[in-house]
């Protein structure tokens, strides 16, 4: 890496968002090895794309756009999805609200599993919303309107509730 400024920018952006990128990749692939490959692809794509960043959006939005494109590219090229059986959740207890039930690491894994089962267009929106992005940022990342973000997010929340076993 010959350009020290580019390198500093790259490392700062990557370090600041590595946990979020890990969760994003984890919502598309299940195995840690595959997630590692995907993260490395994203890091490389960021390094290559960074000189083209002109500040039209925030760097974080820019990074997530690259990451999302790579995730989509990755899942369209990989082998067919793991069987539904593999992705099935434990029998849910519908009487308790999600927010109350979700405590501890095991529930984090359940949430991740539920997000993985969402249809792609809903998963994209939910993952970004869970990363604290607002409608405008999500719209920029995905190239859709803010209204569309709202519609997709509402549907995604309903699907997520069903997957987590809470009645709508």
């Amino acid at each position, binding site marked *: 890496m010959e350009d020290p400024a580019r390198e500093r920018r*790259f*490392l700062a952006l990557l370090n600041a968002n*590595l946990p979020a990128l890990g969760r994003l990749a984890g919502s598309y692939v299940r195995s840690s090895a595959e997630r590692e490959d995907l993260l490395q692809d994203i890091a*490389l794509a960021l390094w290559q794309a960074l000189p083209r960043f002109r500040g039209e959006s925030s760097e974080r939005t820019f990074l997530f756009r690259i990451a999302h494109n790579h995730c989509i590219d990755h899942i369209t090229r990989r082998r067919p999805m793991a069987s539904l059986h593999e992705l099935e959740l434990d029998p849910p207890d519908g009487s308790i609200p999600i927010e109350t039930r979700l405590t501890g690491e095991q529930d*984090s894994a359940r949430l991740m599993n539920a*997000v993985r089962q969402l249809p792609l267009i809903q998963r994209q929106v939910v993952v970004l919303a869970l990363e*604290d992005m607002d409608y405008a940022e999500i719209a920029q990342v995905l190239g859709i309107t803010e209204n569309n973000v709202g519609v997709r997010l509402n549907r995604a929340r309903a699907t997520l509730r069903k997957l987590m076993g809470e009645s709508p």
Partner: protein
Amino acid sequence: MNARPDFGALKRQWQSAAPPLPDVAALRDRVSADTRAHWRALALVGVMTVLILSASLIFAVRSTDPAAWLSFGFSTLFATLVWSVALWLSRGTWRPRDDTISAALDLSIRRCRSMILAAPVGIALYVVGLVGSLAWKDRLVGVDWSSVLGTPAMIAAGWIGAPLYAAGMIWNARRQRARLKVLQELKRQLSES
């Protein structure tokens, strides 16, 4: 406009889910999987070598033609050359020095370098093998080398096999080069932190 305020609990749960360096931590799994694949590939090549040399030896024992023994000698020499080169390329890539992330990272980097170097070396050995078999036919068996070029074996191993092998090796080397770049960045990050 925030993406639904009642998402708060889910957000907290979601954001606490990933380890700080998920890709680095996953390296151990990757290294273990690579090691298993490495040993399986080695066993396969070992079995193939034994089969080829055994066939060549049986042919030489049964044949009255002294060239059959020369063929066995050359096959053994070539197999020794290939194995020597392969073991030289694999030096330091067998297992991590300990169970740390840093050791797993170092091992992954060495494996990438080894596979990058394996591309030109492997292609060169393949060509040497093909040219050697042509020369053997021409000089020792007395079959004109140009007449061998159209045989089914040469079409499969030379005209089709060689470009396929070369393309595969080059593709893998490019993939490993990209991976190496990222691994080196991760190593730098780790050493800085």
